[in-house]
């Protein structure tokens, strides 16, 4: 079955940039139907993939070829999946920019925000951020490259489960039907359902904002609180995400989908999530510095809290969970105090955004 499909579409290979855990999982899923070429930055990883069909120990489909030349990848592939951690996203995008053409379809799977600061400012000190200074990953691609047909992947997609072939689903979001259809065509399988959404900003924001709530969920677990508290947090979290998403140019309805509610529920129950772990350890009494020292990758939610907090202060809107997390992370408020504050906060209406 897999063979016939592969032969029927004798088009260009599909490109995957980045072979971290998610990139590897996506490359393997793509390889079920199409020829796949992956890009890795280090020569030894490229050699490892081509010789042993593993990337940093994770196994890859033997048909996958690797290259460390952005030019070769862009010349060979018309559809590219950017599976790069958000900290490296801008750098990798700039590396690829000279080789990207308007005919390329680019789908990214990165959850994060980039900021454009005025000269002399830094993210830890910045007080005011306008929307125009905040970029989602698709906005980074549009700004830095000639590619315009851009999409994103988001949803509850824990790499470990995907690699085991457990059933899951994702959203491909793009303004272009063409991109959604390509994404569905390439990724859909018996075990993997692919939904489409035209609100790319809303979907990207859902994936980003849920990290804030995930830290809070970890903190509740660390305090030893139960399921009632978690239910309360998730439902208030959704409301906050919807308001923030609207303020940043997404639609509230995307928060209700797979990339919002779907991913949030998964992350708030997952011990593997870095954001959840960060919250958990905070509640156990460690400081942010101590935690960050022992984490090999930054929990994305920390940056998101900073950016969103500066944005809401500039835009003059309220987001109680984010504001309180900001005070816990950066202003020495204790978790218990912030919880008390939230319990007293006058939320009077249950749902006010639909």
């Amino acid at each position, binding site marked *: 079955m897999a063979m016939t499909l592969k032969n029927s579409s004798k088009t260009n290979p599909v490109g995957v940039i980045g072979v971290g855990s998610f990139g590897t999982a996506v490359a393997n899923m793509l390889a079920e139907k199409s020829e796949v070429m992956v890009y890795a930055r280090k020569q030894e990883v490229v050699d490892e993939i081509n010789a042993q069909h593993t990337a940093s120990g994770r196994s890859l489909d033997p048909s996958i070829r690797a290259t460390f030349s952005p030019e070769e990848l862009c010349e060979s592939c*018309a559809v590219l999946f950017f599976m790069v951690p958000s900290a490296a996203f801008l750098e990798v995008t700039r590396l690829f920019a*000279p080789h990207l053409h*308007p*005919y390329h379809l680019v789908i990214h799977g990165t959850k994060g925000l980039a900021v454009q600061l005025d000269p002399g400012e830094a993210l830890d000190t910045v007080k005011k951020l306008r929307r125009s200074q905040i970029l989602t990953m698709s906005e980074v691609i549009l700004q830095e490259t*000639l590619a*315009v*047909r851009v999409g994103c992947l988001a949803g509850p997609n824990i790499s470990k489960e995907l690699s085991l072939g457990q059933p899951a689903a994702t959203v491909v979001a793009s*303004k272009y*039907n*063409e991109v959604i259809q390509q994404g569905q065509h390439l990724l859909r399988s018996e075990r993997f359902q692919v939904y489409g959404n035209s609100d790319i900003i809303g979907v990207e924001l859902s994936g980003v904002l849920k990290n804030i709530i995930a830290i809070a969920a970890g903190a509740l677990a660390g305090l030893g609180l139960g399921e009632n508290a978690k239910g309360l947090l998730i439902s208030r979290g959704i409301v906050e995400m919807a308001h923030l998403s609207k303020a940043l140019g997404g639609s509230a309805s995307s928060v209700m989908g797979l990339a919002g509610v779907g991913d949030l529920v998964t992350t708030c129950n997952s011990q593997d999530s870095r954001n959840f772990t960060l919250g958990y350890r905070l509640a156990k009494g460690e400081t942010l510095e101590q935690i960050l020292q022992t984490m090999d990758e930054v929990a994305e939610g920390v940056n998101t809290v900073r950016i969103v907090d500066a944005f809401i202060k500039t835009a003059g809107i309220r987001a109680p969970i984010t504001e309180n997390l900001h005070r816990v992370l950066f202003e020495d408020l204790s978790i218990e105090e912030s919880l008390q504050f939230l319990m007293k906060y006058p939320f009077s209406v249950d749902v006010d955004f639909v």
Partner: protein
Amino acid sequence: MEENYIKHQYAPILPKKDEWPVVKLARERKEFILKVAELSEERIIGLLGKNPDVLKEELETTLYREKLRIKQNPWDVDPDDEVDFWKEIKSNLLQLHAEVALSKTKRLDAYQAVLKKITSRYAEEISSNFKASHYKFTRRVVTYGFSRLLNAARVKGFTSFFSNQYTLQDKIQITGQTDQIRDLATKGTIVLVPTHFSNLDSILIGWILSVLGMPPFIYGAGLNLFNISIFAYFMNALGAYKVDRRKKNLMYIETLKTYSKEAIQFGCHSLFFPGGTRSRSGIIESKLKLGLLGTAIEAQRANFQKGNGEGLGKIFIVPVTINYHFVLEAPVLIRDYLSMTGQERYYKENDEFSTSYKIFKFLLKFFTKGSDISVSIGKAMDVMGNYVDQEGNSRDKWGRLVDTREYFVSEGKVTVDSQREEEYTQMLGKRIVEEFHKINRVFSSHLVAFVAFELIKAKNQKMDVFDLIRLPQEDIVVDYQEFKTGCQRVLDEIFALKTKGKIDAAPHLFKPMDDIIAHGLENVGMYHAKRPLIRDEAGNLTTEDLSLLYFYHNRLHGYDFEKLF
């Protein structure tokens, strides 16, 4: 301060009128109309999914709306046989309705035949009636007549009427990328997209294009303008096709779009007012009507499909802003805007431009008193909003070569994807608005109006615009010193933006502030019966018509200068 504007007349790019695309089009007018009618028919059938029932319903809707329009909103220009035509369509439809025995394909064919009648009629209605001899005559009359008036007014003495000391080009200053537009006109097809504040704009642009030595452009002019005989003559002479804003049915709109697309593909340089209508508020267009703009993108894609997208098949978008001290229609426009009724549903006849006499009176005033107009020609872009260089090659932000064709390529071929092209049209619309703001040329009158209105607003913080315009005039006084400081603050900000290339400023803004203010006060809305801004006996500022002040103030909206108050 010396103005850096174009003072000489350019040689024509194509001296022989037989080479003008418009003339070629006029020669093949019949075939062209036929082609437009057929393509529109195909397009509509495609949109309605080849379904006879849907087509029938659409035909009935069109018939109903057209009958209503004829009854409720008839115009002088409407053809006499209009009633008969739609009667015939009605009887055709009734006949078809009675024939129940027909098969699905037969019914589709029958309804399509009715559709064909309608698109053929619309295509004929829309089509321009360009005559090269009329064009040349008009151009000569405009240039000669205007420069006589101008010199009579400005140069003193008995022979002044025949003096050539001042030409129209001193009055209407052309700045910006004039050489580029001339170069590109021989390398591809130009689509000019100007801002739109006055009915005078189309004639003005027509004249400017001829000064630049460009062959005539075709453009869509509101059919209402053809009600006025003087305008009708000018419009026809300038190659206008007719846009009837009363007809909002699918069949008309699709025929209009097809006409525009085919004309661009034919190689005719075109002119769209992308705002769709004159700016009611005086604000530079920020939301564009994308329908006609989309036809430029479609035409570009179609040219690429035929393999002639490079060279003459490339389409260049050139934004233009027209800057006035004074807009004749301002009182009507702003009243429309404030009452929110005039959303172009029914065109009001009591416009300042409603009779030839009023227009003549305006022109006389315009040329005998000193109120300058400047026209800024922006940098040319491809249909995706990338700037193009002198050779017509698209360049990205970093100066790298861009192949515009690749935007339309999927899996190696140019493909038709209307959803994609809709998105591209929106992107292009945004780029045009951005360019408008960059090339917009600030005049002293815009500055004084903006500052005065913002100061009045700041004094009455709890009021919105609608409350403000109801304020009694005695209550509105702005202290001169405060006003002057305000002007300086905004001017500093304007110059800061100008160094970043985000706005342009007229040379008279480099004079001392008191001179700028005097110049501004003298010019702002100078021919209105009620002046938007004057100085009282104490030397402070007051207004005779706050809504007019608001109109002229709006010209500087969209740059965030409001935050200075």
